[in-house]
């Protein structure tokens, strides 16, 4: 991929006037400027970065960190106080789906109107119309007024229009989670297509997993300033760590959080029938985990769980005791939880194990031990070169030779 610059943000500063009371009347303008009290709130401070062509670029940050302001400046909706944004590609910014849909007009009319607002010419729209309708899956409703649509249908149509504008640079704000699962899948595929076609995507989101999975590079905004830039996995790691409330940091990068009534003290792993704790096993071996806990006070109906994550950040599995209905009424003192897995089909690589102890609803966290154990899987049988787990496939090829 040739790496020109698709989007350039230079020393961008944006501040807002916060009026103690919003003041939209002539009387106040004429009668007294002194009553017009305001203070300047700096939403973005000297933000500079480039997005390269063909890159998926993530912007992460807490609520109020300036993400939306940055997005609106990039989209040309807000004017910065200082600095500039330079867009060198045909851009489409999806800040809200269906902005400008008119409830009384039919789906067809709204497609044309919305696409025109997003900057398409009449000919473009006409040639994409069938694609849009097909993508939305609303063929039989397209001539009904959109006020008769359900929320899901409305969003699907809006998204179908937005995605078919055919941008070279797509700026997306938190809208990946629209529609039902099938439609989400379709959207995901469309994004992957976009990426594979070498289009540039800027993703502003809370969904850390999609940043880790999709982005090539990311920045982290905090109080309007870039506090980190670079590899998304590392950035997300750093961000998540910062976001976790009261946390304690162990020696090996172990991070613990939770209310602490019960804690997992350590995790042991045994391979095969051996009674010696190990940190490695082979593909398809049987594995036993022992989670040593200590309850500082009696805990009712705790749910124990663990998850295995690849170094790339993909969660391979995440079971818990509630899944199998193992529900002790209460637990006090010390003990351990054993997990036996007869056959672990993980392929060779390094994996991390995290443990959780929560209440029955999985809402309240008693203890979350991030990076409780890091282990290696060595080559066993079957062996495959790609992926994370093996389904032990059996292959055959039939036909003339």
């Amino acid at each position, binding site marked *: 991929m040739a790496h020109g610059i698709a989007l350039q943000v230079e020393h961008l500063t944006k501040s807002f006037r916060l009026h103690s009371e919003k003041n*939209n*009347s002539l009387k106040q303008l004429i009668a007294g400027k002194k009553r017009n009290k305001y203070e300047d709130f700096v939403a973005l401070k000297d933000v500079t970065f480039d997005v390269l062509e063909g890159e998926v670029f993530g912007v992460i940050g807490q609520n109020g960190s300036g993400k939306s302001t940055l997005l609106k400046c990039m989209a*040309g*909706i807000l004017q910065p106080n200082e600095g500039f944004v330079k867009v*060198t590609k045909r851009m489409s*910014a999806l800040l809200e789906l269906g902005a400008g849909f008119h409830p009384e007009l039919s789906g067809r009319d709204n497609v044309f109107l919305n696409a*025109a607002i997003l900057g398409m010419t009449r000919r473009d729209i006409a040639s994409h119309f069938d694609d849009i309708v097909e993508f939305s899956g609303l063929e039989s409703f397209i001539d009904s007024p959109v006020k008769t649509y359900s929320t899901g249908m409305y969003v699907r149509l809006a998204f179908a229009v937005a995605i078919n504008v055919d941008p070279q640079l797509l700026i997306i704000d938190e809208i990946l989670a629209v529609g039902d699962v099938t439609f989400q899948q379709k959207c995901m595929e469309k994004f992957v297509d976009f990426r594979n076609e070498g289009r540039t995507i800027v993703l502003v989101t809370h969904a850390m997993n999609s940043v880790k999975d999709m982005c090539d590079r990311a920045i982290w905004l905090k109080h309007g300033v870039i506090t980190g830039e670079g590899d998304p996995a590392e950035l997300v790691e750093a961000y998540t760590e910062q976001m976790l409330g009261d946390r304690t940091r162990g020696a090996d990068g172990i991070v613990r959080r939770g209310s602490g009534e019960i804690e997992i003290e350590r995790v042991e792993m045994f391979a095969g029938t051996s009674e010696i704790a190990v940190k490695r096993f082979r593909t398809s071996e049987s594995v036993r985990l022992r989670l040593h806990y200590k309850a500082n006070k009696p805990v009712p109906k705790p749910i124990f769980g663990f998850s295995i994550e690849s170094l790339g950040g993909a969660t391979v599995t995440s079971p818990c005791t509630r899944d199998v209905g193992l529900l002790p009424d209460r637990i006090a003192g010390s003990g351990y939880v054993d997990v036996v897995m007869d056959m672990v089909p993980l392929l060779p690589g390094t994996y991390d194990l995290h443990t959780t102890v929560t209440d029955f609803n999985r809402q309240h966290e008693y203890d979350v031990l991030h990076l409780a154990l890091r282990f290696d899987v060595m080559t066993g049988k079957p062996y495959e070169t790609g992926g994370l787990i093996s389904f032990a496939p059996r292959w055959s090829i039939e036909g003339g030779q």
Partner: protein
Amino acid sequence: MSWSAHGELIEVGERHSTPPGRGCGCGRQSRPYTVARMSLRSAMAHRNLLYLLSLKELRTRYKKSVLGWAWSLFNPLSQMLIFTVIFIYVFKASPPIGDPGGLKNFPLYFLSGLLPFNFFSVSVGVSIGAVQGGAGLIKKVQFPHEHLVFSVIVAQFVTLMIEMIILTAAMLIAGNQVLPWLPLFFIVMVFLGLFSTGVALMLSAANVFYHDVNYLWGILSQILFYATPIIYAPATIELGVLKLLANYGPTGSFITASHNILYDLRVPGIGRLAQLVILGVGTFALGSWVFNRLSPRFAEEM
């Protein structure tokens, strides 16, 4: 080269004090003439958006009403009835006589002034609401904001043309051969359209910052209605200032020209025509300039 969603050069913000070339003319150019030309160019470049927005205006206006479009005719007709009764039966006044056409008919005199005036005043009022009502769009999508106003003007112009068909028919029935005069009337209406656009651009932009403008316009348009020779002829006024205002005030001059063409069947004076051209183009340029200066701040203010 830099391109926005609208296929135009886009650079947000200022760079080493060179003026930013925002495609929709939202930059900080200081010459009204340039801005006006850019507004017209942008209207042409986005004629698809303009067309679809205007169509939306027209289509959604009378949705959910049984009589639909007929309402756009009932309003001027009912006003005509009311004022005819007051004029002829209460004040016992006699209608002006068309010179040289010879027509003597109050309802037709009234309508040939009211229809252009309504075009102006409704256009401005609806535009103010359209920009205010477009907040959801303005805050979420980058697009040329002036099209919210342009589309209202286009839709109102279409309405005026429909109303004119009825008025023309009535004129012909009354024996006033108005047909050869319609092209000239149309040209004057184009300049009234430019004038209305200019006023609408200014007031709708100001209204984003101070909502009083909306209410103020309600009063102002009423004052203008009576300051404009619609229910009377300028010749009947005795007070000099009022007469001058009725004759050559901005709306007064347009309506007098409309009376000249449709009711009297004569070409307005060359001085008046020149005034209308300057008024139309000048107001449009000023309005574009004001709007373009203010519209980059819309998203923040709304």
